[in-house]
């Protein structure tokens, strides 16, 4: 759950996290989306579209992250990425 009431600020923070992930974890693209009803609504992201299937992770009750990599994520790498996101989001609480 992200406790940022201002939409612009939320976009900025999530863009930054996406950018850091791409740069430090060698990912092609990362973007965040929130669920509204059955729709996943794009919030912010970073990177270049690879046109390969992305992996989707549910982060909190309405927040999701999509990760595109050149290769399928190995378990330990996936864990590190998700740990990083969780840490960053916790910092915002």
């Amino acid at each position, binding site marked *: 759950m992200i406790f940022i009431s201002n939409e612009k600020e939320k976009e900025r923070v999530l863009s930054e996290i996406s950018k850091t992930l791409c740069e430090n974890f060698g990912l092609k693209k990362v973007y965040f989306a929130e669920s509204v009803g059955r*729709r*996943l609504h794009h919030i912010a992201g970073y990177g270049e579209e690879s046109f390969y299937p992305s992996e989707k992770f549910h982060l909190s009750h309405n927040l*999701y992250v999509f990760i595109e990599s050149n290769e399928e994520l190995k378990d330990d790498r996936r864990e590190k990425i998700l740990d990083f996101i969780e840490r960053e989001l916790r910092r915002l609480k």
Partner: protein
Amino acid sequence: MLTAIEKKWKDNRFELIKKYEKLEKRKDFIDDNLIWDLIKKNENPEPKRIREILSKARELKGLTPEEVAVLVNCKEPELVNELCETASYIKQEIYGKRIVLFAPLYVSNTCVNNCIYCGYRRSNPAIKRHTLTMDELRDEVKALTSVGHKRVLAVFGEHPNSDAFYIAQAIETIYETKEGRNEIRRVNINAAPMTVEEYRLIREVGIGTYQVFQETYHHETYKKLHPKDTLKSSFLWRLFALHRAQEAGIDDVALGVLFGLYDWRFEVLGLLFHSLDMEREFGVGPHTISFPRLKPAVNTPFSTSSPYLVSDEDFKKIIAILRCAVPYTGLILTAREAPELRKELIKVGVSQTDAGTRIAVGGYRQMQKEHIPEKQQFLIDDTRTLDEFIYELLKDSLIPSFCTACYRCGRTGEHFMGLPKSAVIKFFCTPNAVLTFKEYLLDYASKRTKELGEKIITQYINDLFQIRPALAMRVEEYLEKMEDGERDFYI
């Protein structure tokens, strides 16, 4: 005559619209004189000029209003052919063989407006009025999904019975209605203009695309056809409806014109100016454009006597021009048109269409009836079943799509439009079309459709292996899982 409750609701809303008109800071971007000047200035264009514009259109960068004004004046049969060929080329380059299918779902036909051309106008006694209860709506959804539909366009009249709260409840009900594997995965809406707060309400329940048609962009005609004591009389309230929807966070919005109310050349430019203004303010144009033609409606003389009814030839030209002008915007054709014509129009640029359509309120539960005129807004010319329609598409090697992946992956609005559309369609939309079509073949198709459909999927996978082996393997893996009973895969 309106009841006391209807009148009170209408008067309150009328006041709200008047207040809005005073506060709206946006400038009306439809300049009638400018549009007519553009059309007149470019009458009788040189063939060389037309060919230059068509050549530019082939670069897939869209056209300016001035260039569109030239094309609407293109009359020479040879040049019109070249225009249609260019549009077909653009369609093929960007959209390939995929065509998205949906079903319109008329939820209510009660309306406080009195539009001269509309069968649902309040003063038309020939229409049997009804707003579906949530139970009736569930039955309609079950009837629709039992034949394979996954996407609906829910249509509402402007009335206290179908206000924003009702619309939100209807969207939730449609999503919740499931029977075995049958379900709707994307609910698009066609409803009257609302306030930003009301749009937020329907965004929260997961609307797909929000659609509102201006009907006509010509101010004088708009005024004449929408009586001044009605909610629809405000040109600006309607013109900026999609801007307000965007403000509320609904980022897939859709434009439309009812062709036949005014000179079609003017309306095509109106659509373009609307699209450009949305791009200017929000950085993203409309998701789709619809171009229904005025059709006969019960006890509605204007629907057959309008001086601006559009011929089949001009209609084809309209679609071809729009395809050239806004290459990346989805174009929606409806079952108002006859089967043979639809086949031809799909080739010149249509990317979405409805199928197995019944437009009477409660019409899907009465599928055996082709028309229920006293419950319909107008009459439709294509009453084929979904399976019959799909079989015809397959004969033209087209791939039907029931895909709803983009809005379930956050690929919407600016984020989606910023990507090269041809690549998006090639590497996301078409594989997803194949995956959803496979579901249709497994769960709903007739024998002949299944046989032909499987051949087309095999061919597609073979082609995909040549250009994108990793993606082809993933699609194949999903197809196998579907054979084993799993569902709802997407890239």
